């Protein structure tokens, strides 16, 4: 697929992230751009996911509020947003397919917390939907 042309906003932003097993892993809330050492145009190095990224993108008071919520939930961790390296991206189609399972991604922090502290305690949480 060398030379494929995409528009970041049209084809990447706000797209669904799907992990290796077909599970949903968040949306592309922002993209990390890195300038190479030797000069030249920046490259997309990672996908940024979560309220910390989305808040900055929404901008204004609304965005600041979303970012503040993210910082609260971050339970003391550094305030940077969850990052999915582009090395883990398998394919960009109508969704962005990843080659790793959800659990290995930083995006799973909140899900894991909710599972461990709330939903996991309810009887039947781990029962397959048969």
């Amino acid at each position, binding site marked *: 697929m*060398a030379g494929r*042309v*995409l528009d*970041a*906003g049209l084809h990447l932003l706000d797209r669904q992230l799907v992990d290796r097993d077909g599970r949903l892993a968040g949306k592309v809330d*922002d993209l990390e751009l890195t300038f190479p050492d030797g000069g030249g*145009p920046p490259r*997309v*190095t990672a996908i940024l996911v979560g309220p910390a990224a989305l808040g900055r993108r929404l901008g204004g008071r609304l965005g600041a509020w979303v970012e503040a919520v993210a910082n609260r939930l971050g339970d003391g961790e550094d305030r940077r947003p969850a990052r999915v390296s582009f090395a883990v991206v*398998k394919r960009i189609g109508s969704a962005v397919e990843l080659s790793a399972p959800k659990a290995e991604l930083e995006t799973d922090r909140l899900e894991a917390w909710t599972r461990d502290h709330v939903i996991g305690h309810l009887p039947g949480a781990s029962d397959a939907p048969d």
Partner: protein
Amino acid sequence: MRLTDLLGAEVIDQEGRSAGRVHDVRLVQDGPPVGGFGASLRVAGLIVGARGIGARLGYQRRHVKGPWLVRVLAGWLFHDGRYVEWDRVQTVQPDRILISVPVRDLSQPEALESG
């Protein structure tokens, strides 16, 4: 840097004229390889205009046809879109991007086939 730092920034030429705001960033997949994805995505240029609502709906793509009413509206909203190649970008500041080519010399962005 994040993509958001580019989106929405005002694009100004050396004479101080504004080309509008950045509505999208064109990427080309021809950078050094990264992991399982293949060649990485490199920033090729900026899509700029005064009004950008139409751009997001995706009607500039040639194969998107209907509904007619919406397509016409989107086209009108986006009709002044312009393209700035990345090598014409001089400095990136918060909310301002300075370019080295005059605004009147900018051409329209090419419509993409599909995505």
